[in-house]
């Protein structure tokens, strides 16, 4: 445990010791802030119109109209942000030769992988907490439901956990950070759109591909529905990414 903690501290310090953390956090907040602002604007205008009609007035729902689309947009930004957080984690160690220090220290490969993973996940958590500040405006001026909002954030956290595990895996494959980042973006984009095939009919391989996509699993959560199958999806695939990373490092040393 202490070993993992030492690595987490070192990685988080490395994020903040270089411009990466500041640039990524600032850019991310700018985008999220803009999406939130424009969604709120649209929501206010629509709500004003709909309030004229008592029937439509009941349909106004800030969770569905602002937070759900906002959270979807955040996952798309995350497709671009996650590789930036993960690309250097293992690739840079290999390139700089510092992996030789780690692997000749009394640390297990599992501890090294987990230390790196938790550090990137901590960065993602910090970013999420910062975006939560935006929601204070919505809660101060309107009355959104808390449960779907919390579920949305849980979904975002789990999506980050999955994306970072995938990014870490690609970082273990190469010592070139650009290659690691690009392969991660490609994979994450596929995960975003794989469920499109189910729109032209389900069944068979289509439903398998649809299941692989995170979009539907995540969509359920932003509606405030927490189902075991969605949780299982995020947890198994995150674990699978870490397991593959572990195997890649282990096999490289034994070759």
């Amino acid at each position, binding site marked *: 445990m202490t070993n993992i903690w030492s690595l987490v501290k070192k990685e988080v310090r490395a994020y903040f010791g270089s411009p990466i953390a500041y640039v990524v956090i600032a850019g991310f907040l700018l985008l999220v802030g803009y999406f939130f602002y424009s969604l709120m604007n649209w929501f206010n205008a629509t709500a004003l119109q709909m309030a004229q009609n008592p029937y439509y007035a009941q349909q106004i729902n800030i969770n569905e109209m602002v937070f759900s689309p906002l959270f979807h947009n955040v996952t798309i930004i995350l497709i671009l942000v996650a590789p930036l957080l993960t690309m250097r984690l293992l690739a840079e160690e290999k390139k*700089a030769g510092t992996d030789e*220090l780690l692997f000749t220290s009394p640390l297990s490969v599992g501890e090294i992988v987990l230390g790196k993973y938790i550090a990137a996940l901590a960065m993602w958590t910090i970013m999420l907490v910062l975006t939560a500040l935006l929601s204070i405006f919505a809660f101060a001026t309107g009355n959104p439901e808390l449960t779907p909002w919390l579920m949305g954030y849980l979904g975002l956290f789990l999506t980050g956990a999955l994306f970072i595990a995938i990014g870490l895996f690609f970082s273990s494959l190469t010592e070139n950070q650009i290659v690691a980042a690009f392969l991660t973006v490609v994979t994450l984009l596929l995960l975003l759109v794989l469920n499109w095939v189910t729109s032209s009919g389900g069944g068979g391989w289509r439903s398998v591909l649809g299941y692989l996509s995170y979009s539907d699993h995540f969509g359920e959560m932003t509606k405030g529905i927490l189902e075991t199958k969605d949780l299982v999806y995020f947890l198994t695939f995150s674990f699978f990414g870490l397991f593959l990373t572990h195997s890649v490092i282990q096999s490289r*040393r034994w070759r």
Partner: protein
Amino acid sequence: MIEVRELTKRYGELEAVRGLTFSVEAGRIWGLLGPNAAGKTTTMRILTGYLPATSGRATVAGFDVFDKPDDVKRSIGYLPEVVPLYQDMTVQSYLAFVAEIKQVPKAKRKASVDRVIASAGLGDVRRRLIKNISRGYKQRVGIAQAMIHDPKVLVLDEPTIGLDPAQIREIRELIRGLRGEHTILLSTHILPEVTQVCDGVVIIDHGDLRYSGSLADLAASLQKSDGVLLRLRRAGEEEAALFRGLPGIEKAAVEGDEIRVEWPRGRDLRDEVARLALDKGLGLREMRSMAGIEELYMKIVAGGPEQ
């Protein structure tokens, strides 16, 4: 302290190390000598647990490298060929991080960092970023990180590579100062380094062991005779013949622009040789002892295929 038995490492078809056997006693400095691509780095990586061996055994500080890797890693300090530095850290915070992952107890960490900073002479740069310090300092940081957990054994892969002559001398002094407290295995392809710093030597070439033993034994087995190389105003056959006439001299021959004079081991005829050169007015410019290990090394290494 270090025991290697029949160690073999294969990378696919390539045999980097073949049946290597040697041992190093506690408290000694041993050199691992060989041309490039001889298998020095591979041997060290196996000893430090970075690479597994294909076959054979190795024990360090009484622990088997393959069965007890964590115990070995705790007993070894390792300076890899490429010094493993995090460029964006300060010297101090880097050493503190290494102390943590080498499992130095929390209460002792600060003292350990201060100790290695003092012994590696890093006081002036402790708060600077590693990327901003000179190459010589980086190498010292590398040695400092290897010593941070006060390991019994130090494995140093080419500790003086890429340094200027003054820095090389400093690093050698530093290593010599560690004799006794630590058992040290250092690799190099520079011969004088071995004769200046080491007690013994393991010579490998293309993965094969060529020699293993103390420097004193090496000199004894190598040289049946003692001798000097003379640089005179003129080095010709006549001058050589003059030296052959001296009582006790076994051999005197022209070698390039020098004259090599040899006599049976056990005597010291240097005074006589010098006196003759002065008496006959040969214009003595320089007189130096034959470098035994250098010759042996060249013989050993030149025997193999192209390096």
